[in-house]
Every structure is written in C-alpha cells, then in structure tokens.
C-alpha cells in the first residue's frame, strides 16, 4: 500500500494505517533527530513528538508533496525548535570542542584510534551545535544524512540554488570553527576530495 492510501485511511480513523506509516518512517525520523542531538533518549522523544504532531495534523496534509517530504519538514522544524529551546546555540569555548587531537595525521591503531575518532566526532558535533540553525540543519541533512539537493530543497522549501550557497557558507563556517584543530599534515586532497 502506498503512502497516499495509508494517509487517507489514517485520516478516516484507521489506526492500523497510521501504524504502517509510522513503522515505515520511524527509523528515518529517529536517525534524523539523532543526527542533530547525538543522544538516544532525546532523539527518541523528538521522534515521538514528531509523529504525534503528524497524527494531529494529518488532515492538513494536502498531497502537494510526498508524505515523506512533509514528514521530514515537520521533523526538521520540530528539531530546530527543540535546539532553540534548549539554547544549545550558545558559544562553546574552543577548548571544549576537543582535546586538540583532531589534527593527528594518522590515528594510532586499536583502542586509541577509536578514542581519537570519537573525540573528532564529539568536537565536530559540538561545533555544529554552535552554528546558526540554518547552517546546522543543512550540514546535517547533506553531510550527515546524505540527502540530495532536491530532497533538501523540498524539505526546507528553498530552491536548489539556495541549498548550494547555504551549504557552501555552512561548510566554510564549520571549517573556521574547527580551524584550531585542523592541519594540513597527512591530509591532502587524496584524503577525500573526489
């Protein structure tokens, strides 16, 4: 059964149809939320809130876009509101971004390497949280979740051109924030520039 039929059934009060929709999208919404908050409990709460909102506003869905896109839009807006509420945009001191080991050219093997990678991730995630929501959102959708330009444009209701320019500015700002932890050593373009 496609999304449209399920939405129509759910609107008529068919809880089973809504259950199918939830099961179809719960992982996506959870992963989206997790990408922003990096905390399982908060991501789960946010995903639940999103589906409650969707259930309450199902009658407002006009089939102008895919159900998944509409759901994603609600999720992104809800997560943005959450980030604003908890005030996580406050500036994080550079010392808190990481231990300065981000730039280590070659991670040591084994446990230490894992620890190093984890430190890098924490530092980048903290830097993301200090960025304006529109940059945080676009970087998370593109570079963490891997959405296409078209999907991002549809979710955020902006043009692909705006996605392009905003993504460029977001990446530049992230690099600027992480500048103290980045070095050129051992990281040529062959490390990722395709």
């Amino acid at each position: 059964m496609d999304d449209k039929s399920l939405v129509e059934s759910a609107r008529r009060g068919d809880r089973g149809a809504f259950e199918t929709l939830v099961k179809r999208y719960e992982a996506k919404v959870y992963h989206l939320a997790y990408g922003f908050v990096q905390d399982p409990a908060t991501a789960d709460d946010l995903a639940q809130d999103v589906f409650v909102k969707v259930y309450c506003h199902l009658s407002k869905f006009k089939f102008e876009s895919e159900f998944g896109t509409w759901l994603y839009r609600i999720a992104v807006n809800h997560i943005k509101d959450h980030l604003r509420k908890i005030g996580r945009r406050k500036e994080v001191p550079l010392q808190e971004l990481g231990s300065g080991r981000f730039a280590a050219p070659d991670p040591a093997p084994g446990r230490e390497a894992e620890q190093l990678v984890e430190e890098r991730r924490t530092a980048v995630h903290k830097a993301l949280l200090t960025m304006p929501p529109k940059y945080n959102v676009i970087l998370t959708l593109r570079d963490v979740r891997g959405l296409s330009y078209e999907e991002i444009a549809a979710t955020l209701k902006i043009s692909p051109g705006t996605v392009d320019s905003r993504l460029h500015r977001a990446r530049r700002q992230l690099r600027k924030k992480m500048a103290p932890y980045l070095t050129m050593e051992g990281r040529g373009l062959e490390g990722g520039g395709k």
Partner: protein
Amino acid sequence: MNCRDAERILLLSWDRPLDAAGQADLDRHLAACPGCRARGGEYAALRDTLHGLPQGTPRPYFWTRLNARIEAIENPAPLTVWRKWCLRAIPVSLFLIGLFIGGLIFLPGGGDTMSQSEALLLRNANPIIETSAYLDETKGVDKNMAIIFAASERSPERKPRP
C-alpha cells in the same frame, strides 16, 4: 581560477560531478597552490567526520509507546480534562478578582454624604422654610448676623480666619 573559486568548485564537486574542463582547471590550481590543497584536506577531514557521525539505533516498542500517547490525546482521562479546565480558570478568576478590587479602590464613592437640603427633601420637608426665616428678618443687621451664624453652624469644618 583564483583560490576563492577553487574552494567553491572543490566543495561543489563533492555534491555534483564537474565537467572535464572544470575538473582539469581545479586539478591544475590545486597542483600549483599548496594553500588550497591544505584547505581541501581540511574540508575532506571534516566531511569524513560528519559522514561518520553515529546514526543511533531506534529504541524498541516505538509504536506501542506512540500509540499510548495518541490514545491519551484522543481519550483524555476525565480528571485530566477537569484539571485542564481548572488551570485555565485560575488566570480568568484572578483577573476578575483584580478587576473587582480595582473597581472598589479606584471608582469614585457613591455620594454617601447628604447636604442639608437633600436631607430635608428626603424627610418631605421644605428646605426653603428654614432659610426664609432668616431672610424675613426686618432689620438688616439681624438678618446678616442670622445668616452668618447659620452658615457657621452648617459647615463646622470652616473656621473663621484670625
């Protein structure tokens, strides 16, 4: 191609493949510019880290928990409804009480003092009769004195000036 263009095209190349000429231009610039090469490496490191951020694993019984929440929204317990109305009634009641108290304090009094003429009229007495007794005095001096004494009797708060 300057460094600014190279940076932009490099980042763009991660999202969309460049045409052969564009790619060749970029490669040429990067080969000649160590700064841009380094910058490209930094961007790549950041991108790899972002790609590697954990996705998390959804918690079990997602639907069961969600369904319970939806049930609670659709069929709220009577106590919950009552409590909701009570919570709404509190500010309204406080506003009305404030309005009442404000009215008592700030509205002018309802004229609880009555003039002598009003009091006489209330008793169905003629307020002119009492006055006419003073005015009927034949002697001017007596008449004036009677009026002065009468005035001082009626307004005890007025004191003669020294």
